[in-house]
C-alpha cells in the first residue's frame, strides 16, 4: 500500500453534504475487475454531461483544481454503498486526502486501505479550509500526518485526531493482511475453541 506522510498541494472545495459513493463513482464503473483506471470516472455524473463532455462549472474541471490532491467536503462524506471503487477513483485521480466534518464508516475505513488520509475536523475549521481551498491553485494546503496538522495557505494550522494504529499503518504503508497473519496462532487457538463451543458454526 502507498504510504502517506506529508503532502502540500491544491485543495478542491466541494461544499456538499451527504456526498454518497454513487456520486463518487457511479455503478457502471463497478464492473471493472481491476483497482486502477477509475480516476477519469470520478464524480462522473457531476463532471460530464450526457454526451461525455466536461461540465465547466464542476470543481475538478476548473483549471485551478485539475491537479487537486486534497478534497475539502461537507458532512457525511462517502455515505451509502461499501464500494471501495470510491477511494480507488479518488486515488487514481490523484486525491490522497479528504477533509470533512464527518465520514460514513465504511468509506472511512476503506480510505486507510488505499493510502488515503480522511481527516475529520469541526465544521468551523472545515469552513476555514473551504474558504482557503476556494482561492485556487496558488493557495496550497499542507497535510502532515506525523504531526497531525493541516496548514492553510495563510499559515493557519489545525490539529486533527486519528487512531494511532491506523496512523502507523498509513505512515509506513503497511499491509494489513501480513500484519494479521503474524497473529495466526491466536486465530488458530480461537478457531479451535469455537469448534468446541459452537460446533455448528
Amino acid at each position, binding site marked *: 500500500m502507498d504510504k502517506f506522510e506529508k503532502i502540500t498541494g491544491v485543495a478542491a472545495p466541494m461544499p456538499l453534504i451527504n456526498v454518497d459513493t454513487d456520486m463518487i463513482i457511479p455503478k457502471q464503473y463497478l464492473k471493472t475487475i481491476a483497482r486502477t483506471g477509475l480516476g477519469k470516472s470520478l464524480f462522473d*455524473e457531476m463532471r460530464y454531461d450526457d454526451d461525455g463532455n466536461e461540465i465547466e462549472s464542476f470543481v475538478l474541471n476548473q483549471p485551478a483544481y485539475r491537479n487537486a490532491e486534497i478534497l475539502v467536503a461537507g458532512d457525511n462524506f462517502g455515505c451509502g454503498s461499501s464500494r471501495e471503487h470510491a477511494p480507488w477513483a479518488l486515488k487514481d485521480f490523484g486525491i490522497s486526502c479528504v477533509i470533512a466534518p464527518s465520514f*460514513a464508516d*465504511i468509506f472511512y475505513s476503506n480510505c486507510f486501505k488505499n493510502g488515503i488520509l480522511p481527516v475529520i475536523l469541526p465544521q468551523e475549521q472545515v469552513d476555514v479550509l473551504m474558504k482557503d481551498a476556494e482561492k485556487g491553485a496558488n493557495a496550497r494546503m499542507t497535510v502532515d500526518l506525523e504531526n497531525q496538522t493541516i496548514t492553510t495557505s495563510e499559515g493557519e494550522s489545525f490539529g486533527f485526531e486519528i487512531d494511532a494504529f491506523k496512523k502507523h499503518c498509513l505512515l509506513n504503508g503497511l499491509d*494489513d493482511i501480513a500484519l494479521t497473519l503474524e497473529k495466526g496462532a491466536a*486465530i488458530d487457538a*480461537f478457531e479451535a475453541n469455537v469448534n468446541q463451543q459452537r460446533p*455448528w458454526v
Partner: protein
Amino acid sequence: MTAPKTLYDKIWDAHVAHEADDGTTLLYIDRHLVHEVTSPQAFEGLRMNGRKVRAPEKTIAVPDHNVPTTEGRDTYIENEESRIQVEALDRNAREFELVYYPVSDIRQGIVHIVGPEQGWTLPGMTVVCGDSHTATHGAFGALAHGIGTSEVEHVLATQTLIQKKSKNMKVEITGKLRPGVTAKDITLAVIGETGTAGGTGYVIEYCGEAIRDLSMEGRMTVCNMAIEGGARAGLIAPDEKTFDYVMGRPHAPKGAQWEAALAWWKTLYTDEGAHFDKVLTLKGEDIAPVVTWGTSPEDVLPITASVPSPSDFEGGKSEAVKRSLDYMGLTPGTPLDQVEIDTVFIGSCTNGRIEDLRAAAAILKGKKVKDGLRAMVVPGSGLVRAQAEEEGLADIFKEAGFEWRLAGCSMCLAMNPDQLSPGERCAATSNRNFEGRQGRGGRTHLLSPAMAAAAAITGRLTDVRELM
C-alpha cells in the same frame, strides 16, 4: 457479577480472537458472503500474494448485482463487463472451493436473501460481505456489516477483520403499528428522525413491541436499512420467531447441535441495565405510511404531507434540498400523493422476500396497473420466486400487468439491464434514492411494497390505506 451487557457487547465478546492494548481487535468472522462486484480484486490479491482462502466452507458466493433478470441469462450475459465479472466469480468460487450458488441454481438470488434462506445466517454470528446492506442479517441477532474489497481480501485470507468496537444505540418502537404501516415505514421513519449520519459510529439494536411483532422478513427490512442511517449494523435480539424461521433450513444445526445452539441463542439479549450511548424512541402508532421525496433516504415524509421547501431547512441541508428538488423535478408545496410516476419496482434485498410479495399482491389482487406505467416484480431469490408462483402471487402480478422477473438486484442499483431513463420517476421498494442510483437522471421514491402496489394502480404516489 459481571456488568450488564448489550446484545452487541455479547456477540462482540464471543468473537474477539485478539485484542491489542489500544482496543484494536481481530474479530473472528463466522460467515463471509461474496458477490461478483466487490470481490474480483480481492481474489486477485490473494493470487498475487500466494495466499489461500482460510475457511472456504464459511465463504458463500452468489452472483446478484450484475445478472439480468430475464430468461436465458444462465447461458449468456450480453453485457460484456457484467459477463466478465460473473465469470470471474464462477472461476474464483471453483478455484478456491467456496460454497457457491451459480446463476443456473434455483437457490441463486440476492446474497442477503440467500444467506438467511439457506440457514447460513444464524443468531450470534458475525457476518460480513462486501456490500453495505449486509446489515440485513442483523435481524437474526447476528452482527453483520458491509466491508470494502480490501477487507474482503483480509477476511478471505485470515477469517478475521481488524475492528474497533462501535458504540451502542437503542432504537425502540413502542406499541402497535396502525393498518397499512409496515417494517419499511418503520425503518424509513427512523432514518427520517436520525438523519443519514445519525447512526455513524454506532451499532443499533432495534427493540420494542412493534419490532417484536414483526415477522423475520419484516425484521430483515428494518435492519437492512440501518446503514442508510449511517449505522455499521442493526441488530434484533433472537426470539421464538427467529428460532422457528431458522429451524430445518439446509445449513441450520440439527439434533444435539440444534439444542446446544438454541441454549446459547437464548442468552443473546441485552441485559437489564446495560448501557446505551444513544437512545431513540418512536411510538408505533405515530408512524404513517411514508415515502421519500429527495435524494437522501433521510428525506422522508408521510404520504399525507407535501413536498417541502429548501427554506424549511438550515445550513448545508437547505442547499442540498434545493439541489435534490431540482434533480427530482418537484415543486415545494405539491401534495406527495399528487406526484405522478412512470415506473414501479418491487424487489431488492430490502423488500424482495415472500412476505413483501404477499403484501403487494394483496393490494393488487383483481386490479390493473395504470395504463402506460411500467411495473416489475423481481423476487429476491429463485426460491422466493418459486414459492410466489406456488401461492398464486405470480398470477396476481402478471394479471395486474407486472413483469415477473428472475431473481437479482435488478433496478435497485441498475448495474444490469434494469434501469431508469433520465427523468423517469419510479416508486421503488429498494433502499437508496441517490442521484443516478437507478439509472442516470432517474428519480426514485422509496416506499413499502404495499405502497408500491397502490402507486402502480393509480399511477401516482398513493396512500395505501385508501385501497385497503
